[in-house]
């Protein structure tokens, strides 16, 4: 593991190199092989990340093992910490790799630092020293005393703690699976190399985001992933909707990032550093350490610092809400589904959108002491979770349902971190990454097979044509719905439990959302994969996998392939043949015939192996691995075991400082972290079996309801929707939020823009234009008066000049 830490720069660098190779040589030389550099780059950085994780697990002493080094150190005097610091440099041969002291304020910690180089250094300046009242201080001779103000110095360095290690594994691991999937999914797309180059760049930025040891590196990665998100949403740039969605994502994120940027600046102004833990070996000078100390009143703050601490969380939160698509900045995420599906899986479900949760977990210390901020996050998170879940009830586009579901689940994560259960939030982040990536990739397979159609009203019973996808998506749906003993069950449960402990109403809202989640997830599943086989008639124009402007040949081919599936199905599944014949609309056949004999023959020729065509191994393998993850990830944090994800994450210095800060705040104690206080607190787990029972029951009820409404009697759902038509319309229109934004923000801004454009064109440009007339006119006048073309005139002027010069010299 020392090797990995010493060469940790390879983790971001390899994907970047891959991206560079794919980007520079892809168009001309690699072409259809452009996925190789990215596979190699991301794959090897995944190997490094897992080596790091397992190395760290090897160094980790779970709490209840007793004895152990951590236990002893915990009992030691705080003064011993510094001694421990010096003696426990893991990589003594390399000064830039530093291990943290193994304990921090009597909590065990596990963290390593890797300093690379000084990134930004702005010189120091001398200012007059002031005393507590702000009056200048003078020395004996009456001269004002000066002191040196801290440099603006930012190091490029990495911090490796359990949180980073877990995030890295999620990013590179799931990232690698998705690049594997993309090979099959994106095959033959125009700009194949471009897609992979962007993916590599994204992984680079995302790893920088989670590995950086200070807020500015976090911000660098933050903006970088925003850029990659923009590029990838707009991947099909010949499609207007994709361009609009890309711009929308970028602009909405600017709103949040503006707040985030201000928050970072305020951190620097108030505390003189943006590094989380400052000089890694010596505790005390980092931003989070200062904030934690402040909570204990160990370090009296100036009024300005107190005010700053009041505002910093709100500013940082704004950034998190933008990136993680929380109300009111969530509007970009559903539109972001215009990007290719693997992008939706990787960026807009598994990794980038969780950056906000990561940031709040990382900087938890700044938040826990600020009750209004925590309440805001909890309220926004819970509201978003419920709000997005209700919208998802009435969406018909597969990817849109999952997009709103992602927004909703991110709300869950925010509630988790806000109710002082950051471990639960991060746990849900991990499980969600697995099952949501799985679901998106599953919908990608559907989209691939259905020639770009994603409307669940146009398809049904796909289980017969996509048998493997059906199974994997079922696993993903069960996990998302929180079905007992699937991963989502455990992680959601912890958040709901912590929320209930925190505030009954909050917990109830979370439970209601969990119910809606189970319902809309299985509404989708039952409609798309179960029931009679119905295949879409023709690709929907302008949406989905293919190009909107596909020519008629491509159309014919797509339709033929859709009917080929049907043909193959009818030939192979003898028992279902009658059913399929009866239920499938004749029009599907019709279309194939309309396109002429050639298309039809083509369809039949491929009829027999249609199943294999649409579920190639390179696409099914990632799905299978993700499905295994979606089942097993929940056991990472089995509550009764001390050696759980929670115990591991609990040793991240970020979490330790947050516990410390929380301890310092009146009315809060480490027990409020409840779920995973690294120190044994037996009473904290009591609540959870009861919650598990309730949430498991709720999930099953939701699934059953979906079964009744969407499988047993599909007309029933429509009747219900009819009976509450206004509500249905409201949900289908997504609460008219986009329209409200259009009217309240976009249109006024556009009007303002027009006004400014007019002012610019008429008044500013007019003034500038008028100024340009002055030299023009004077030059014209001079030309008329002097330059007349008479040689004698010029000679006279010359003479005159000479005379003037002589006069000046001699008189």
């Amino acid at each position, binding site marked *: 593991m020392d090797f990995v830490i010493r060469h940790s720069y390879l983790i971001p660098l390899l994907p970047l190199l891959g991206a560079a190779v794919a980007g520079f040589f892809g168009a001309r030389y690699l072409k259809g092989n452009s996925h190789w550099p990215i596979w190699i780059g991301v794959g090897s950085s995944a190997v490094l990340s897992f080596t790091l994780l397992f190395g760290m697990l090897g160094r980790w002493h779970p709490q209840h093992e007793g004895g152990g080094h951590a236990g002893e150190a915990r009992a030691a005097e705080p003064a011993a910490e510094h001694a421990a610091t010096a003696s426990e440099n893991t990589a003594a041969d390399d000064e830039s790799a530093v291990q943290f002291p193994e304990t921090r304020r009597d909590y065990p910690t596990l963290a390593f630092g890797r300093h690379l180089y000084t990134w930004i250094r702005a010189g120091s300046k001398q200012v007059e020293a002031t005393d507590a009242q702000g009056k200048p201080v003078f020395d004996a001779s009456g001269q004002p005393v000066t002191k040196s103000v801290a440099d603006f110095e930012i190091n490029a360095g990495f911090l490796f703690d359990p949180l980073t290690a877990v995030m890295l594994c999620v990013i590179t691991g799931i990232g690698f699976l998705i690049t594997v999937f993309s090979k099959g999914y994106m095959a033959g797309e125009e700009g194949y190399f471009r897609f992979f180059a962007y993916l590599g760049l994204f992984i680079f930025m995302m790893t920088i985001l989670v590995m950086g040891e200070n807020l500015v590196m976090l911000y660098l990665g933050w903006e970088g992933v925003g850029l990659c998100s923009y590029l990838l949403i707009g991947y099909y740039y010949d499609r207007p909707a994709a361009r609009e969605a890309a711009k929308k994502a970028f602009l909405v994120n600017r709103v949040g990032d503006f707040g985030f940027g201000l928050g970072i600046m305020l951190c620097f102004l108030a505390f003189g550093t943006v590094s989380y833990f400052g000089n890694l070996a010596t505790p005390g000078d980092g931003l989070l350490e200062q904030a934690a100390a402040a909570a204990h009143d160990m370090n009296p703050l100036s009024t300005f610092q107190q005010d700053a601490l009041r505002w910093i969380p709100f500013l940082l939160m704004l950034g998190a809400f933008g990136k993680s698509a929380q109300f009111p900045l969530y509007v970009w995420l559903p539109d972001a589904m215009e990007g290719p599906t693997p992008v939706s899986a990787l960026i807009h479900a598994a990794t980038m959108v969780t950056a906000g949760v990561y940031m709040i977990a990382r900087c938890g210390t700044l938040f826990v002491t600020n009750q209004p901020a925590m309440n805001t996050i909890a309220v926004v998170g819970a509201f978003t979770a419920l709000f997005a879940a209700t919208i998802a009830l009435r969406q018909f586009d597969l990817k849109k349902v999952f997009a709103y579901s992602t927004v909703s689940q991110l709300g869950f994560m925010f509630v988790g971190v806000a109710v002082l259960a950051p471990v639960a939030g991060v746990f849900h982040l991990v499980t969600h990454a697995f099952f949501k990536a799985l679901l998106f990739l599953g919908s990608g397979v559907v989209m691939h097979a259905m020639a770009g159609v994603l409307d669940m009203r146009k398809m049904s019973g796909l289980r017969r044509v996509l048998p493997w996808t059906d199974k994997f998506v079922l696993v993903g749906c069960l996990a998302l719905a929180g079905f007992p003993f699937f991963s989502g069950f455990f992680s959601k449960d912890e958040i709901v439990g912590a929320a209930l402990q925190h505030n009954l109403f909050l917990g109830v809202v979370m439970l209601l959302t969990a119910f809606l989640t189970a319902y809309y997830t299985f509404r989708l599943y039952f409609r798309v994969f179960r029931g009679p086989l119905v295949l879409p008639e023709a690709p929907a124009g302008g949406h989905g996998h293919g190009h909107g402007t596909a020519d008629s040949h491509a159309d014919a081919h797509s339709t033929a392939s859709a009917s080929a599936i049907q043909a193959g199905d009818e030939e192979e599944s003898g028992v279902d043949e009658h059913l399929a014949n009866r239920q499938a609309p004749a029009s599907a056949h019709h279309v194939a015939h309309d396109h002429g004999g050639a298309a039809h023959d083509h369809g039949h020729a491929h009829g027999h192996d249609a199943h294999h065509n649409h579920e190639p191994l390179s696409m099914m393998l990632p799905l299978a691995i993700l499905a295994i993850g979606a089942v097993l990830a929940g056991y990472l944090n089995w509550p009764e075991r001390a050696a759980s994800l929670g115990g591991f994450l609990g040793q991240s210095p970020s979490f330790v400082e947050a516990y410390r800060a929380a301890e310092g705040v009146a009315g809060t104690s480490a027990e409020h972290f409840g779920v995973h206080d690294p120190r044994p607190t037996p009473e904290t787990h009591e609540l959870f079996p009861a919650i598990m029972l309730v949430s498991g029951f709720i999930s099953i009820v939701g699934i059953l309801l979906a079964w009744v409404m969407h499988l047993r009697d599909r007309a029933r759902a429509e009747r219900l929707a009819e009976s509450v038509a206004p509500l249905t319309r409201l949900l289908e229109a997504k609460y008219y939020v986009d329209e409200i934004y259009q009217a309240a923000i976009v249109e006024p801004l556009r009007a303002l823009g027009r006004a400014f454009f007019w002012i610019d064109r008429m008044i500013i440009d007019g003034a500038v234009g008028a100024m340009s007339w002055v030299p023009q006119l004077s030059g014209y006048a001079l*030309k008329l008066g002097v*330059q*007349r*073309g*008479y*040689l*004698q005139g010029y*000679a*006279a002027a010359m*003479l005159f000049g000479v005379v003037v010069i002589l006069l000046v010299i001699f008189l």
Partner: protein
Amino acid sequence: MTQLALQHYLAVGAIMFCVGMIGFMTRRNLIVMFLCTELMFQGVAINLIAFGHYHGNLAGQAFVIFVLVIAAAEASLALGLVVLLFRTRNTLDSEAWREMKG
């Protein structure tokens, strides 16, 4: 009759220069204007020789030899140009080239 002093030479040079200048200003025939510039040249050359003689060294004369050589080259060029101009417009009037102004 006193001996010729420096100022006599200078006066001749100045007169030649002024005659040339006045000629250049008043005449419009390109060849005449060219001759006038030559006249101004020789006025200056007389000045130089006079000063050289006055100071008792040969620098002035050496300089004038240089100037004359260059003036000869320049004269051939200028006359060539004048011939070209005449061929183009069939006149020697400098007014004919007024549109050459910027």
